[in-house]
């Protein structure tokens, strides 16, 4: 009963988050000025402006406009893109796979490297591994991903000519963006795993596990890692969100034809329907990912009831 209730609570929170964002997007686009004036060439006559306003439903009350917007948004309809003239939602969904591919590859590569490093650093404080992990996490936190991208392009593509600097197509096109994103990701996972393990390994129950004669590997695997896992999964869930949002920058640097680049270009063209659709879809994916991480908790830690 309680389990069902709290799953319901999570679902409601996720829905509320999406709703709040849609309201924010609506209010911003309506209250920051007349959308019709942005859509129309500046030399248009007042009659043309008035015609466009009534065509877009802008001459009606704000509440009524919001109801129309909401009922269309629920069905995934954000209107037609001003630049491309086709459905904004369809454009967004066309680009989504490229973004997901990039984010998933970066997550797999980054975490595969970060987890062993974090464990080594956590289990052996003040060794080479510990210092390497500290180095990696400091750099991951401090280096803007687009600058890292530019440096990678400079050396690996421009100087050494090893892989293409931009575009999508072959596996070699993925090399640089995935490398940049995964190096960026490694920072926090390594950091959390290292700090948590070092704390956990000083706890009393670890000492008693050692005292009853368990080997170091058993203590680490059965007792320490199990408890460090929950913090790491939280960070990974949050990271997927940041990763999907961060592809906005990475895709711009590497000219990767994904959703993020589409949104940035739409912003430069003041293509509001496309911006709305892109932001809402990205946010929905991120919120879904966070929801899944939340629901995974009880599998890792029995003390947490969903």
């Amino acid at each position: 009963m309680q389990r069902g209730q709290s799953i319901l609570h999570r679902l409601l929170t996720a829905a509320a988050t999406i709703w709040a964002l849609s309201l924010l997007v609506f209010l911003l686009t309506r209250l920051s000025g007349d959308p019709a004036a942005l859509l129309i060439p500046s030399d248009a006559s007042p009659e043309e402006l008035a015609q466009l306003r009534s065509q877009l439903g802008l001459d009606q009350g704000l509440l009524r406009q919001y109801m129309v917007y909401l009922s269309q948004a629920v069905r995934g309809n954000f209107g037609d893109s001003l630049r491309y003239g086709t459905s904004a939602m369809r454009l967004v969904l066309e680009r989504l796979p490229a973004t997901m591919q990039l984010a998933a590859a970066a997550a797999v590569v980054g975490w595969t490297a970060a987890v062993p490093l974090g464990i080594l650093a956590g289990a052996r404080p003040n060794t080479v591994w510990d210092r390497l992990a500290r180095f990696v996490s400091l750099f991951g936190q401090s280096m803007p991903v687009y600058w890292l991208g530019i440096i990678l392009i400079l050396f690996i593509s421009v100087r050494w000519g090893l892989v293409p600097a931009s575009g999508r197509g072959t596996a070699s096109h993925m090399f640089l963006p995935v490398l940049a994103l995964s190096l960026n990701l490694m920072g926090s996972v390594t950091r959390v795993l290292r700090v948590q393990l070092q704390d956990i390994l000083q706890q009393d129950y670890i000492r008693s596990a050692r005292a009853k004669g368990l080997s170091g590997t058993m203590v680490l695997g059965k007792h320490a890692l199990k408890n460090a896992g929950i913090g790491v999964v939280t960070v990974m869930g949050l990271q997927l969100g940041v990763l999907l949002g961060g592809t906005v920058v990475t895709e711009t640097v590497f000219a990767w034809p994904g959703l993020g680049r589409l949104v940035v270009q739409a912003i430069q063209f003041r293509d509001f329907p496309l911006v709305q659709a892109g932001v809402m879809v990205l946010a929905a994916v991120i919120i879904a990912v966070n929801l899944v991480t939340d629901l995974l908790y009880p599998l890792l830690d029995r003390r947490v009831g969903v």
Partner: protein
Amino acid sequence: MCSMSGMRAASNAKPLNLPRLAFGPLRRLSVFGFHQWDVLLAALVLLTVGGSALMAPLLAPAESMQQNLIQRLQEPSFSLRDGISLGTDALGRSLGARLLHGARYSLAISLTSALLAALVGTLLGTLAGWKRGLLDRLVSAMINIQLSLPFLLVALTLAAVARPTPGSIILVLAAAGWARFARMARAEGMKLSQSGFVEAAKALGQWDHRIFFQHIIPNLLPTMIVLFSLELARFIVMESSLSFLGVGVNPTTPTWGGMINEGREYLATHFWLSTLPGLCVFLSCLSLNILGDWAQERMSPYSTKKEGKADAGH
């Protein structure tokens, strides 16, 4: 993967003096009994960056930032007679002068927005954690919503519709970044409100606002200052990302992010145009992170790494 010796070093209550050996002879050098070179360097970098940002108009006159197409894309030069010149960009504007003036904009905007976010976040979070009830539910819901949306996406949406002036960018960054401060302040406020001295002050009949400002806020400050130094790094990266994407302040205003973007076209021939401003962002953030980590480790009661403290006595 995990040897016995590694485990032992970690699980001993009193750690061996390994760090001292590990750093070798360098550790013996000290400045006023202080051994941590990374922290010293970080402080030095921040002082340099902050100082040159403050003195930018003195170090590099604003005229050198004017367009001069005859002098475009000049290479950096170092000579005793003319001093250091970092060359010029594609429009013939002095790179060095733009870096210095860019530091003013980038740092002023990040700093102001981070301060605003910290102020709002700390006040809301502490009040929520202290008073609980309806206010807490509201603030918690706002924190959860804010944290589940990525910072950059929110900032981008806001920046897309707000007219890009320094003021609006500051508001955008603060609106997108207050939640982490609020979450930390809420947890601390909850802990403090149950502590003995707050109970005692309440029992003595002290007014709420005096408890808040005299007992709760001062005890919260150390934690929030550490968080602030780590968050400021994130704000600097975020501000530069917005300028990089072209939704920051006016593109003719020099900002580090904008300069990185403009220099990208010339990466193959004039790589310093976009790598140097990036280096400024990176070094500033690295220094803030190093200082923040150091302060956090010194404050943590469980930390085994109070090296500065331990070393000062030996």
